């Protein structure tokens, strides 16, 4: 019986890690479907961004109250997971509270700290659930979240409450058993939060208490493994990808658009035909129609997005009722990547499905509404740029499809012929000088 549990535990752990690794591999493969872009320069600045933006959650602190609550969940979740190390070792070795004799008083102190954090996490999760479901916050009411994304957010919060409650209930039962001097339950001293729950357990016999303690222990760890495997399908993946996303964030001024050296060359060849090399090949793409033509960083962005909607809440187009929602741009990009990923899983390599990110997932009307004001980029706590995707898709619309509103076509021809976006004669450019 004893060994059976250990074997079962090892099997479950290995299966959970294997499944997660497999899906993580698919996500990595999907991200690398994007175009190459070198983002390794200036490691000092990049580490700084990782520490400040990802670890320190700097941008979250634009709203300090929410930032502190979010930080509590995050810190709680990470720190309490130290306890998982003990749980895993106990599971493999068939021991109980392996670290308690080794750490002595420190053990009691640590578990107490975990319990306070667990309580904090539960409280904040309840607050966040009410923010999402009771308070009428515009960014959570948005139609962007209709269906699965709204449920996803609630499932995450519920799961965290359940996991923390299991942890506390397990400790509560453990304490009653300790107090009764039950075999296997070694003395650890009392735990602050769970001792309150243990008051409810005083009437139960040792058998029931052991059953509660063991069930909670198993449900807690199996729950964590399940949650680990839920992450890659959820917006919650940001707890992992926020870190690389901050590291690889662009370091140039936000105003600088990515150059297109292939177009630069084409123009140079047109202006100076003598520079055309004999083996010049015209570029295959101008801008992006699909995820394959976006930078891999934009694809990492899409997987890092936790759909918080700070981008959309700051977007001037969205605020004034236009279709564009930067959050939806990121969600649509991830949806496309998942569809392409499934396609590759089925067919070994991508077989065309007659769909593209542009048009089938993101509409022309959305793209047209962007003022390139960088509010979305500035607002994102995890260094995502919806603007990079928008401008790349716009490039494809104009250069591959010649799809522009009539006014823009006039603007283009004015710039080309009159060197200004309006229909003025270039000779009048310095007319103002004569009026001084």
């Amino acid at each position, binding site marked *: 019986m004893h060994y059976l549990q250990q074997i079962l535990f090892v099997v479950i752990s290995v299966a959970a890690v294997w499944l997660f690794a497999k899906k993580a591999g698919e996500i990595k493969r999907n991200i690398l479907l994007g175009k190459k872009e070198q983002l390794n320069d200036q490691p000092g600045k990049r580490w700084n961004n990782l520490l400040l933006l990802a670890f320190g959650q700097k941008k979250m602190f*634009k709203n300090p109250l929410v930032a502190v609550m979010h930080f509590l969940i995050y810190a709680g979740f990470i720190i309490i997971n130290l306890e998982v190390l003990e749980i895993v070792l106990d599971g493999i070795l068939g021991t109980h509270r392996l670290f308690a004799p080794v750490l002595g008083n420190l053990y009691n102190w640590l578990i107490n700290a975990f319990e306070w954090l667990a309580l904090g996490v539960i409280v904040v999760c309840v607050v966040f659930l009410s923010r999402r479901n009771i308070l009428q916050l515009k960014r959570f009411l948005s139609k962007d979240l209709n269906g699965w994304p709204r449920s996803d957010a609630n499932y995450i919060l519920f799961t965290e409450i359940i996991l923390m409650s299991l942890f506390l209930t397990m400790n509560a039962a453990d304490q009653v058993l300790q107090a009764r001097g039950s075999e296997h339950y070694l003395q650890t001293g009392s735990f602050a939060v769970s001792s309150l729950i243990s008051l409810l357990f005083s009437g139960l016999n040792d058998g029931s208490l052991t059953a509660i303690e063991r069930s909670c222990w198993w449900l807690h760890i199996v729950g964590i493994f399940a949650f680990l495997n839920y992450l890659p399908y959820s917006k919650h993946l940001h707890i992992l990808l926020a870190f690389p996303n901050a590291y690889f964030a662009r370091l*140039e*001024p*936000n*105003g*600088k*658009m990515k*150059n*297109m050296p292939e*177009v*630069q060359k*084409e*123009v140079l060849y047109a*202006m100076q035909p003598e520079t055309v090399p004999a083996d010049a090949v015209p570029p295959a793409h*101008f*801008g992006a129609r699909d995820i394959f033509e976006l930078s891999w960083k934009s694809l990492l962005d899409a997987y890092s997005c936790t759909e918080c909607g700070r981008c959309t809440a*700051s977007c*001037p*187009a969205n*605020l*004034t*009722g*236009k*279709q564009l929602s930067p959050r939806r741009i990121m969600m649509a990009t991830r949806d496309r990547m998942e569809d392409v990923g499934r396609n590759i899983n089925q067919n070994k390599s991508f077989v065309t499905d007659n769909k593209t990110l542009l048009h089938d997932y993101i509409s022309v*009307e959305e793209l*047209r*509404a962007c*003022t*390139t*004001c*960088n*509010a979305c980029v*500035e607002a994102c706590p995890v260094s995502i740029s919806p603007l990079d995707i928008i*401008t790349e898709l*716009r*490039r*494809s619309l*104009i*250069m591959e499809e010649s799809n*522009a*509103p009539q*006014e*823009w076509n006039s*603007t*283009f021809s004015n*710039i*080309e012929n009159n*060197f*200004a*976006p*309006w229909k*003025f004669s*270039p000779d009048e*450019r*310095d*007319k*103002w*000088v004569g*009026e*001084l």
Partner: protein
Amino acid sequence: MKVNTMAEMMAAGESPDILFWVGCAGSFDQRAQRITKAFAAILDKVGFKYAILGKEEACTGDPARRAGNEFLFQMMAYQNIQVLNGYGIKKIVTTCPHCFNTLKNEYPELGGNYEVIHHTTLLQQLIDEGRIKLKEGGSFKGKKISYHDSCYLGRANDIYEAPRKVLEALDAELVEMKRCRTNGLCCGAGGAQMFKEDEPGDKRINIERTDEALATGASFIASACPFCNTMMTDGVKNREKENEVAVLDLAEMIAASME
């Protein structure tokens, strides 16, 4: 007051300290021309040796690039860089944040390397150095002014303080809009929106921003971009407040307040 073109300066065997890049709005738009003239007057008054490109200046390509027309952008950049490099230009000042952003951030990769400065930064420097002297009790003294952040100065290039310091020098009362600095709301003109109708929605962006500016109770809305200026001026007119609230560029405010 004489404004020299680069061609004239070259012919006279001289070279300017700085090139004033006027931009398309500053050259052709009647409202923006007033900003251009005010800034030229300031440069003249402080004794700057400056020149313009005149008819040789062309659109930087910013709206074309943001709309998605990279070919047109590259063509304009190529031409402009040929002209600028031909004259051996080292330093450029511009009254347009879009030209500023393109010249400063996007031309270097294409072979155009210049020291580029926005006029609000230059004004701040000139005030700090004492080269711009402001009248005691100027017309903005004690008046409420709200500064509208241009996206292409602010978020695009992290310039938030220089324009505010210039306004502080006017002895005015600076009142911030709810969304300011990094959270500033766009006027609605960027990304080539200036040149087309809005997409379907329930409000124009410039009206949303103007309402916010009007809510501060300021009598002046200060802008640092000719496009923002147009958008906010239209917004104020739309709300029928043009008799109470004026939209002015920082250059106009300083020019009107100099000794």
